[in-house]
């Protein structure tokens, strides 16, 4: 078992360096990956779609889309793919790691930027670097999509008001003729700086091997 063990470890070492997960966590996620893909090498959208628990999620499509979005792979590519391998899966998951006690302030800042970038990419579907009004409306509509009719009508108003707010915070002295193109990444950061993304946007990744995939004792 020695040889294969080291090979796996090598792989994991590579992945661990890139994504920051521990070996335990990578192993667990690999198991989940296998489960989702039906023991294939890659997963497609259909695999993710078939997760029953996701059915109730109003932003399901965006979440699944984020996995296949090349921008989240940190390799300066754009576009989307149809199948992703384990490494890409891990890369996307790595956006949700929490900071720990040893994370320095700069690292926290970098983490925050990364997470905000992830969110930004989710909103900016046409990848032009800004979230336009139409895109933002779509976001709010999707959020409301499970709420029936009441939601749809007001979603537009809400999106408009939110956009207005972004504009007035970031570019307060716009003349009446100017046009606010859309939310850029800097503006996005500005309006969400109160939310402390680095601590909020995380999930606890399991360290302990739980083959039943239930919520066991979690330490992250």
């Amino acid at each position, binding site marked *: 078992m020695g040889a294969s063990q080291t090979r796996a470890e090598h792989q994991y070492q590579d992945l661990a360096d890139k994504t920051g997960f521990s070996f335990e966590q990578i192993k667990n996620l690999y198991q989940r990956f296998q489960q989702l893909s039906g023991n294939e090498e890659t997963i497609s959208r259909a695999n993710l779609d078939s997760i029953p628990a996701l059915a109730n999620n109003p932003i399901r499509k965006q*979440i699944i889309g984020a996995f296949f979005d090349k921008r989240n792979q940190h390799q300066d590519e754009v576009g989307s793919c149809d199948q992703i391998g384990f490494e890409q899966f891990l890369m996307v998951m790595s956006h949700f790691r929490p900071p720990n006690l040893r994370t320095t302030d700069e690292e926290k800042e970098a983490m925050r930027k990364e997470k905000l970038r992830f969110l930004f990419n989710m909103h900016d579907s046409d990848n032009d670097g800004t979230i336009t009004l139409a895109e933002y409306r779509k976001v709010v509509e999707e959020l*409301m999509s499970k709420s029936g009719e009441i939601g749809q009508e007001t979603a537009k108003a809400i999106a408009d008001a*939110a956009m207005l*707010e972004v504009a007035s915070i970031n570019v307060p*002295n716009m*003349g009446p003729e100017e046009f606010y193109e859309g939310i850029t990444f800097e503006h996005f950061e500005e*309006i969400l700086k109160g939310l402390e993304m680095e601590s909020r946007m995380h999930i606890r990744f399991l360290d302990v091997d739980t083959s039943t995939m239930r*919520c066991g004792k979690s330490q992250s």
Partner: protein
Amino acid sequence: MPARRDSHSPSGKSLPERGLLLLIVLVLLQGSVLPLGAASSPDTTHNDYVDNPQEKEENYTKKAFPVLTLNYQYIQAPFEISLWILLASLMKLGFHMIPRLSSIVPESCLLITVGLLVGGLIKLAGEDVPPVLDSRLFFLCLLPPIILDAGYFLPIRPFMENLGTILMFAVVGTLWNAFFIGGLLYAVCQIQPANPSILHKIELLPCLLFGSIISAVDPVAVLAVFEEIHINELLHILVFGESLLNDAVTVVLYHLFEEYTRAGTVTVLDCFLGIISFLVVSIGGVLVGVIYGLLAAFTSRFTSHVRVIEPLFVFVYAYMAYLSAEVFHLSGIMALIACGATMRPYVEANISHKSHTTVKYFLKMWSSVSETLIFIFLGVATVDGPHHWNWTFVTVTVLLCLVSRVIGVVGLTYVINKFRIVKLTTKDQFIIAYGGLRGAIAFSLGFLLKKNLFPMREMFLTAIITVVFFTVFVQGMTIQPLVELLAVKKKQEAKRTINEEIHTQFLDHLLTGIEDICGHYGHHHWKDKLNRFNKKYVKKCLIAGERSKEPQLIAFYHKMEFKQAIEMVESGGGFKLPSAMPSTVSMQNIQPKKPPPAKPAEKAPSQLTKGREEEIRKILRSNLQRTRLRLRSYNRHTLVADPFEDGFDDLLIKKQKMIELEKKIKDMNNYLTVPAAPPDSPTMCRARLSSDPQSYRAKPESDSVPTFQVDLASPQSPDSVNVMDEFRRAGQQRGGERREEDQGLMMRPHKTGEGADGKDPQKLTRCLSDPGPGADEEEEDQPFLA
């Protein structure tokens, strides 16, 4: 008189005024000292009444008719109570008139000092100090308002997020404190070397009991002090949550040790039963609270016709929850918190805005008065209470309290930080430890001790009072400068923005989704499940009418609009944007410059000829004339600055009516017959008849330039609900099902020209919304609030 001239000084708080105030207070005190001290026993009064009739029968001599008589006993009790409350409130006023005092010394200290003074005065007058901090009065009348206020306005999200930490501190921390203090105190008491002092007589169990009384952090004191230092939300909720939740532990420990003091020993079985009791007390208390909370929510669903008593339900149900929990010796505080927190989301969706304001202000008022009274009474009771000062005991107690708190916090934080994401830093730990104030609850519990079981009761009381004074004065006064010194993060004053709200929700769903993909059921999964359960079943039962389906984001949005409306109104209308957004950005800047490409054929108005437009306009005008008149009669100079009048609800009704009307117009773009409003229902009549001098803002059309919007989907009164139903029904009859953009009413400021394509539909829709006497009048009416 020179004094008079002084009174016009800019500060306005000149010496004569202060002197006058002081004089009033002294007079009141003197006046109160005599009756308060007099405390004529009810027996003698009764005897008087009994004797008098007999006297009258025996020798009735006719006296002159008494023009003025004095009968103090008749009103004595309410009079004294009112006098105390008045005194407390005047004191509060007085403190704020002295400029620098309130920033140096926290109010609680000042109030205790006043209490000491009053108690001293009464003693000097030679009267008996009334037993003001009587435990029944305290626990049944003074404490509940404060706790209810805290529970009703508890910020649920941070509380739940930190629940594990809070519980650790509350349960484990208090247990640790109790045993550490009690045990060490006993040890210290035993070690008196040569001269056998009374300390030797204290046994272990009373010590432990004493420890459990003194170890609990007091919510009243914490509230009083922390409110003034504006510390960041996390620390505030940690200390405050701990002070609330440790009540269960205190209750159990207190009863456990009290029970067994007589027996003298505590067996393992008793300990085990104690643990079970703890679970029963805490979970039982919470359950009682939740049940009453749900009852209150359910009741509020039906109060739409009797709005005036809505606040009463909130208060009475909560109080009943407290009393019911106390019946079974469950934790009344936890019951109150659970009741308040449970009923709040549903009750707020059901009750009118005025009731909401009433609830808020009554709670604040009562809790404020209660707090003031508690501190004053603490002072009075200090002067009165039988004291037995023992240097060793008292100093060791104070010392042990501090030490055990620090050790407890540090130790617990070490463990907790392994499980937390946002770790607690040393600064945080320091504040948590320093914020562990003791207060009146400890004193009242000590007061409850029976003398025969606890011969050392007086010594205990003295020690408790000393600790309370120490924490309130020393820690209370120094925590503010320490917070500044350590540069602890302060509370974020920024208002919650709608972007934050959107993204909070977005994050919730995103994280739930990621958890599902990961395959493990974490916090978000269960939270999401709870939310869905809530939305699907609970809200339907407990919230009346349409609002049961309203998603949270929309509710938030409406609240924000409402607030903006109020701000606008209060700033007197006008063209200024609310100060919160001092920018010149308006919707105009955001809308895409080009008019949207070829609209689908549903925008049939563009196909209508000018002539048809005119006809439709005329017809609409006549239909909406009356409402239009109302709008015209308003201008910003006659603005009534109170949008809370009933008229506001009518305003919403009318606006909704117009929106619906327009919708139908859109649907019927090929007919000339304008749908008539459904036959006047009583609600509509009522709506029209009442006046509506309110500010009025419309929803934006998608491409136009409204700057402010008031949305309607939150019916505040039954009328609006009925109206919507009526129109919906009427609308369905006509069969217009196309889903179109909601073209709200618009009052737009002068806007620059738009593309020619946009002109026609704009014009028509404009006139639909704003039918004026002149067809070609300027585009906009008086923009009420730009």
